[in-house]
């Protein structure tokens, strides 16, 4: 695995696209975190249901709420890092380097594992950024914070990492299937925004919660309703986590089958 990681790293570290997207993602997360309260104050649910609520009085950016709130918002920006996965895969086909890697002695499975390794590294990078931001915000109040309070609800950080890994493997599968950057990104967005909501109408009852994007969404459901007195999950559903991991494995398997069956 270390060898595959080194190979993938060699491909990425000198790519300007890679660094631009990485920096963009980090900057977006920091900017969103810095403007968290004002963004939330203007959110529909607050404006419509509790226009007089002063979010400054709520522990949105304090431990332990910060983990759930921050990972929820950060989840919207995972598409930025998915661009790296998609461009990295489709470029390998555009440049003919995927086939050359196999000719040079990489098995198709190894090639796929190196891309899944990239997906994990990107997810880890984003998770570390989120942890860094969360710690900065949580500790910025000046008061002494017990260590147990910091650790509480950090299961949402793990859920965020899994959400990203699964989403990136899904993006990898699409890119392998379509081999075109533009079409893959469009399908990634169209499925998330249009197709799965449409499918949800036709899938009976709670089964729609188990569609892939819904499964990822349910790892961390909208956490801010609790500030207006609505019931909200404050713990990650482990069965939801297991289903998400199952989807990750399934997308990985589909990707392998695509790679194995098709000519490179």
């Amino acid at each position, binding site marked *: 695995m270390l060898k595959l990681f080194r190979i993938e790293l*060699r491909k990425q570290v000198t790519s300007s696209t890679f660094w631009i997207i990485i920096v963009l993602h980090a900057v977006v997360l920091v900017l969103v975190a810095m403007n968290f309260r004002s963004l939330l104050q203007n959110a529909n649910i607050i404006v419509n249901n509790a226009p007089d609520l002063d979010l400054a009085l709520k522990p949105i950016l304090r431990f332990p709420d910060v983990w759930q709130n921050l990972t929820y918002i950060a989840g919207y920006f995972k598409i930025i890092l998915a661009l790296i996965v998609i461009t990295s895969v489709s470029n390998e086909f555009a440049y003919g380097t995927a086939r050359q890697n196999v000719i040079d002695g990489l098995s198709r499975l190894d090639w796929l594992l190196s891309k899944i390794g990239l997906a994990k590294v990107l997810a880890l990078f984003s998770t570390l950024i989120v942890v860094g931001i969360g710690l900065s915000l949580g500790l910025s109040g000046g008061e002494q914070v017990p260590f147990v309070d910091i650790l509480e609800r950090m299961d949402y950080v793990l859920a965020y990492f899994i959400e990203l890994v699964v989403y990136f493997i899904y993006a990898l599968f699409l890119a392998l299937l379509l081999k075109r950057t533009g079409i893959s990104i469009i399908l990634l967005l169209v499925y998330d925004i249009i197709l799965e909501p449409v499918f949800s109408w036709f899938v009976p009852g709670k089964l729609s919660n188990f569609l892939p994007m819904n499964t990822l969404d349910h790892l961390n459901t909208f956490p801010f309703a609790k500030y207006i007195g609505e019931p909200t999950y404050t713990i990650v559903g482990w069965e939801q986590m297991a289903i998400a991991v199952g989807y990750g494995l399934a997308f990985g398997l589909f990707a392998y089958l695509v790679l194995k069956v098709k000519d490179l």
Partner: protein
Amino acid sequence: MQKVLTTEGLTKQYGSIRALDNLNISVCKGDVYGLLGPNGSGKTTTMGILLGITNAKSGTYSWFESGHGHQMRRRIGATLDKPNFYPHLSGIENLALVADIKDIKIPNIRAKLEMADAAKFARRKFHTYSTGMKQRLAIAATLLGDPEVLVLDEPTNGLDPEGIADVRELILKIAQEGITVIMSSHLLDEVQKVCTHVAVLRSGQKLYEGQVHSLLAGNDGIDIAADDMAQLRRVLGSFAGLEALEDKHGVLKVRLKDGFKASELSSFLITNGIDITHFAHHKASLEQEFLNLLSQNRA
């Protein structure tokens, strides 16, 4: 002789088109083996299957009499279709990546770049390369790790005449070191100069496989004309080394039996009082034999 490659009944279908039809070939250690054929004959498909990037419909193949896993491919240096490298990496960085994939501990990249005459531009990004530079880098990449076999698809594509001669010399030098070379090329003259064996493909079927000199043997020709063509014909008929005689556009085309030389024939004609006005000895060419094979198969 140790078999480096054997294929048995390789078949590939693209929709209704049979790109490869029950192909059986074998390559021995030290051979310089040319895959020849017109466009669409199945050369690149064959190489694609042998290099693990194209799935055969049926049939099997074996490298080094040990199967065809990715571990086998690490013992092979190969480039297919066109040089494929990462455009944002330099030549050296691209070769370091290949060395990593092949698990080469001491890749000796500089020496391989120099062998392929690619050292002087190896620090530049690949996307700035000309076609010839790309081809040279691809050859350097195939040499990494001192492979037992080189598989080269149109290795002289994009090279100028000097570059073509360099690559020819390089292939000959590699072959002298006992490395097996499998190559395809449209330049039949080049193939004739470097290959010991050839397979000729057409529409996915093998028309010929064997040594180049066997294919060419007995096909050298001599064109002769004289003041008195009738007398020339009579004298030629009495020459012990005559294999075949054909009258074509006022010139007699002569083929000699094995072991007889053109100089012996000219001495014989002069001794017998023939006033020769034209005497041209032309060696059999792979191109002519290739075209003959294709036309025979078409017929």
